[in-house]
């Protein structure tokens, strides 16, 4: 996708959620596997937040832990970015414009196929 990096995945992620809840969907199980991974969320006013994925509810509101806020210094991109730590934050679904997770390329492909199955 954006930057095709060929290096081996160093991310050895063991699924933190056991599949004990048999009735929960495949998608929910997958999202559970993303918990505590670095997540990059873009919001309406142009800022980005990176933090560890902590929680999501039915409405799609996301809580990030130890988040860092990034914002550009100019409206016209590209421009240098400023950043600062903001800690524990809640990003309401209504202002979220993008959402990415840090993962190995193989995993990215499997995530893509998962999403394509539905659509």
């Amino acid at each position, binding site marked *: 996708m*954006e*930057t095709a*990096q060929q*290096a081996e*995945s160093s*991310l050895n992620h063991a699924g933190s*959620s056991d599949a004990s809840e048999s009735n929960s969907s495949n*998608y*929910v199980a*997958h*999202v*559970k596997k*993303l*918990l505590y991974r*670095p*997540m*990059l969320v*873009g*919001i*309406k*006013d*142009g800022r*980005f*937040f990176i933090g560890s994925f902590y*929680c*999501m*509810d*039915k409405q*799609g509101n996301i809580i990030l832990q130890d988040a860092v*806020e*990034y*914002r*550009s*210094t*100019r*409206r016209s*991109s*590209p*421009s240098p970015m*400023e950043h*600062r*730590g*903001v800690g*524990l934050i*809640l990003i*309401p679904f*209504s*202002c979220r414009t*993008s*959402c*990415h*997770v*840090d*993962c*190995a*390329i193989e995993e*990215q492909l499997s*995530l893509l196929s998962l*999403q394509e199955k*539905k659509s």
Partner: protein
Amino acid sequence: MSMAEKIEAERGRAVEVSISPSIPSGEGTVWADVSSLLRLACNDLRDDELINGENFNLFAAMSALEIMDPKMDSGIVSTYYSIDEAIENGAAPVPLSFDRTLDVQRIIDIMDHLLSCEATWHKGGSLAQTVFSSIYLMRPERTSSHALLHSYCRVIRATCNAVVSAVSDARTNEEEDLFTMTYGLPLKSEGDDKCLSMLHAVEETISRQLRACKAPTSKKRVLEDIEPLQNNFDLEEGFCKALLCRLRFRKHFYHVLTCMRRPQGKGLELAKKHIISCLAELDSILQSGEFLRSNNAHGTLEEGIEDKTTASGCQPIGFDSTLNSRSATPTPPRAIKLFSWKKAVDYFQKLLHDLEILCSYSLDPVFENVLRFVVDFQKFQPDMVARALVQLLLVQDGRLYGRDPMFAVICKAALLPDEAKNNDIQKSITVPQLEQLAINLLRVLCTNTSWQRRKLGKILQDWRIIYVQLELAFRKEHGDISRPSVDENLCMKICKHILIWVEEKTYWIASRFLTLGFELDLYSPSEYCMAYWYMYVILMKLAEKTHIKMMMSNETSRRKTKKKRDFVKDMGKDHQIPPAVLLFQCYIYVVEGLMLMLAALRNEHKVFLCLGPFNSEHGRFIQHFELLQKACLPDHVSYFSFRETTTHARFSTLSVYNCFKDAQRIAKELRDSFANDPDRIAELRRIEQVAEHNGIALNLICRLGTLDPSLKVSFEFTHHPYLAVAVVKRS
């Protein structure tokens, strides 16, 4: 592709561009888009279900800052992404307009708005969101081509810097730590130290322009080389005057701050002169309002000037409080309501009046008088800046006013003869601790009253401990027989005097602690009885210790003058109770009367009882007076002593023994003793009024109370800050 899709795609690309260079993913990993996966998962979630890990804590999650909530998110991008972007978009042009009349008009608006910002900052706003919401202030180099704007920005920065350093040096801002936060703000720009000479030059130019436009036409020719301030001749005088008073106010205010910081109060005289000038300029600033409003083309009269931050009523140019809100802290931004221009002027008038009181202070070397001065000063409810300056005046380099060594001050306060202050006893390790306690006491008295009360309660224990330590140390010292006997005598005396003084001060602190409870409105009417009971107990002790201290010093002075006729005279004097003690007696009668009246109302009329589902009366007693109890003030006094004193109070006995009458009598007698002290006379008058009103109320309740159950009694603080007055009404 539909238009919407196109926009979506465009946005996606923009995001990619800005992410990849600045926000790298982990090593060997990529940012994978999971938006649709999240959407699908959300569809499958039950309503109350969350996706979360094992250590998830809903309570902790509640403290998350909500992004895009204006009350929580300090980073919301409003108009501009950065100051530089704002400047590029012409948000803060230099000059403000190429039309010179408009330029002057807009600069005056900036000056006025900055005054509103400054007042708001003094009253608790953050510097970043108030004064430094000005883009001009944030970029000092940009204004250099505009002498008027540049000099004004400089003096503002220098003034803020002086205020920040005063407040942080004094540390009176424990509660308001927002005040001194200046991260990332250009508070000290190069050349700001020379702000006064620049300001002076600008002032000179404008006063010449003012003279030129006022000169009769015959003289005009001579003055023709002077370029006018702006283009409209009819407005020249008004604008010159409006600018001059604003510039001069800044100059004098800066002088006030620097003069007041001079060591040993040496700048107070000069500071007072500048204060008077400041107040005069503020009056002129107020007067200029009418002229400026009349020139406001947009006309804001219908909207009212009351909420405006400028005299003209125009919105000032070059301010954006959102640009800086991030630089201060990631914590939620505080909603800031700026003072209006009128309120800002009022604020500065009040501040200057408070500072004027301070500058008129005589630097009294007697510790007790210093305490009284600070307590009286606090009655004006000075703001943080004034309180910081008081403290910096009182305590400098560990000395009183930076002048008197604390041991000498303590000796004088303990009514010891002059030679005591040179005694070796001060080398005892406990004495410096006592000196430190005395300094701390002064510092605490300069803080805001709620903080002060908590602190006073806590330092009581230190004063109790130092008493024991001093006693031990003195005993040890005294056991040393190698000293010559004369010195030994003096030593003994110093020990005795200082010990009694320490006790007296401890009870003074306790009484201040109790009275502040009333001033801060911490007691409910059902708790007044116990509060007055405690005041009664403490004041009795305070009066006793003060009396002993004074008798001890009389004894000393009498022994010194060994002439017989003086001796006889003094004998007579000794039997008289000193006025200071009588004044305490006066308070004691009033609080005793109030306590007994409240107790009788509780016992006989079943009102003002401590009922309620949450706390027992004992519980409330502990809540209010735990710190006094911990310090054993006085010894062997507890909730049960309070119950014991008050359970038997009845109106039938109160009417015979009327404390209020005694209080009134003593207050009248004391008038002569304090004839030279107008503050004390005023206080006596207040006590008399309280006693008189309460005496009448008491009689009324005694006579009618049992006959008329519709009688309602309430307590109000209409005559005195902590001595209540009973009001009897028929419901």
